[in-house]
């Protein structure tokens, strides 16, 4: 939704019920924007596509063998030990065999120390499956004397598989007032794959989990409705993650895919009530009326547009202003750099676009106009 405020270039003074500034921590900053820049307006949709899955297994399960489903030869299997309290795996005692033929499916093994040299995975060994192996079900088993309670993560990555789980969301930042929904498709080359099992959960920054309502269609798509936690952990603590696990069937293959996407949740503790541009004789400025349900340090950001001599509206500067505001209705002043305006060669009519209100104590976006 595009929201613009068009203000005539005549001198105008607006009178407000409250004009006091709450504290002396007011800060403002402007920087120029290239006139040729094409700026996105409003929240941005986000999607992620996954060709992998992962699951937790115990030492007992690894000793008796677990089934892994592949949809391509040359898959990569990671086997990661929990950092504390789990037996380090002996690469030589890990076997991966085809369930159909019982033959080894292993092309190559990479030890935990070799993988750790990349600086990415620690406590993790890797196996690549043979390029000559048909896609299908494999059995992963360890011959090692593991404790039954040891914990491991098994990841199966299939870089070139045509099967993928795509997660989509209309925006990644939500306030406590907004409904959060997302969709997913399990597909093979854009053809839907029938989802037989689906699990979705919302994971908070501190690891706490919340259930997610899901509905699955025959065509391989799903919809999710996320109920908001009672106590929101704002972005200053990290992001929530929607994690979806699916299992489907296609052409005799079992397709397993996990995907996750990140979401910011923000307490909706303030909103923009009105914005007025003031173009007096020698200075352009704006007043932003904010209604807050609690005191915090709020910041307004906006893009100022001006009109060229050819009558074209172009972006001139990104403007910021922040101040601690009390609960109630208060004003926040946006000031604009007059030198930048002169340099841009623009005049009235001016516009403020993409006006955003942030709570700096949450590091979150609370309103947008």
């Amino acid at each position, binding site marked *: 939704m595009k929201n613009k405020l068009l203000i005539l270039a005549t001198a105008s003074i607006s009178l407000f019920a409250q004009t006091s500034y709450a504290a002396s921590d007011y800060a403002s900053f402007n920087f120029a924007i290239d006139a040729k820049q094409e700026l996105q307006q409003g929240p941005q949709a986000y999607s992620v596509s996954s060709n992998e899955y*992962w699951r937790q297994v115990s030492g007992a399960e690894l000793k008796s063998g677990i089934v892994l489903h592949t949809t391509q030869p040359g898959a990569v299997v990671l086997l990661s030990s929990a950092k504390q309290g789990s037996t380090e795996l002996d690469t030589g005692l890990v076997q991966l065999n085809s369930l159909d033929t019982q033959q080894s499916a292993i092309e190559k093994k990479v030890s935990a120390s070799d*993988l750790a040299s990349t600086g990415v995975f620690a406590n993790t060994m890797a196996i690549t499956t043979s390029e000559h192996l048909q896609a299908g079900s494999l059995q992963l088993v360890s011959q090692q004397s593991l404790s039954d309670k040891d914990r491991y993560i098994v990841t199966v990555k299939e870089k070139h598989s045509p099967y993928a789980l795509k997660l989509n969301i209309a925006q990644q930042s939500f306030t406590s007032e907004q409904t959060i929904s997302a969709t997913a498709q399990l597909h093979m080359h854009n053809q839907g794959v029938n989802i037989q099992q689906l699990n979705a959960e919302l994971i908070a920054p501190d690891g706490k*989990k919340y259930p997610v309502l899901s509905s699955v269609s025959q065509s391989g798509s799903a919809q999710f409705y996320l109920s908001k936690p009672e106590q929101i952990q704002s972005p200053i603590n990290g992001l929530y993650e929607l994690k979806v696990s699916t299992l489907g069937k296609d052409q005799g293959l079992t397709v397993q895919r996990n995907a996750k996407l990140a979401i910011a949740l923000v307490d909706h503790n303030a909103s923009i009530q009105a914005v007025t541009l003031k173009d007096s004789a020698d200075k352009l400025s704006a007043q932003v009326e904010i209604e807050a349900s609690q005191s915090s340090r709020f910041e307004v950001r906006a*893009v100022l547009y001006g009109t060229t001599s050819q009558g074209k509206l172009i972006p001139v500067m990104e403007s910021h202003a922040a101040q601690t505001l009390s609960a109630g209705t208060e004003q926040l002043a946006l000031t604009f750099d007059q030198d930048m305006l002169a340099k841009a060669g623009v005049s009235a009519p001016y516009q403020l676009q993409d006006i955003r209100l942030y709570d*700096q104590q949450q590091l979150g976006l609370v309103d947008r106009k």
Partner: protein
Amino acid sequence: MKFLKIPSLLLALCWSATAFANTGVAFVHGTGKQTDAYTNYWTGDFVQSVMNGNGNKYVVINCDFDQFMWKPEAAGCLAEQLSTFITQQNINALYVITHSNGGNVIRWIMSNPTLDNRYPGIINAIREVTALAPSSKGTPLADASNNGNTFEQSVGWLLGYTSDAVRQQQVGWMAQYNNNNLYGTAGRPSLPKPFKAVIGSDVDSAFWDSDSYCGGYQYQLGLEITQNWLDDCSDGFLECSSQAGAGSVWFYDKSKTRGREPLSHHQSRRDCFNLDKILRDDI
């Protein structure tokens, strides 16, 4: 013989402009907690080579970039050390060199000028940022190393090298930050000062090639595994698209390095293949 006559006024103006530019250089490390980045992260050889002929005003930052970029230990620490350097050395043209996640932390400062009263002074003093292999759009490897954490109630059970900084550099997390908190990516307002990226596009890990050992050798087997999470164009840790995701691209490694050698993620913070000389000349 013809001589080029430069108008004396122009000469005087040029001299005046350079006389007032007091240049300093800041080296900003990537993910990790550093206490001696000069020795352990960049090496003294690299720092001294970059500064050769560029004066002696430089600072090598030591902060805790295992934290989220906005934390006092990260951006707060960076702001403190830069502010002190700028003030003490009277710097008005700060050339910032970052590596990897260091690019995200300096972008945090440049994108949030009202968050901390030190930030505007730093932004105003910055001449430009040269970001070596910045993780501007995160990396799928951060996602992969964090996947196991979704099984636990508490993030205390951590796999591998993950930390808050690694969580932050997951692809979806960086998309959220880029769209809401950071500037410089496509469709967003540009950063207030130039942010130009040097892109590492490949990893040369042939054990028989001495060039593979510059900056530290990475074993081929491990790299073959991590490549499954990355595009063909990557420095072994970051895809080229992530490195090029914010600001502008200064150059892809092979277009300027000696022998057209690629710069792996480790090599892009070392004096490998004339990278130090390229930076030196640019300053």
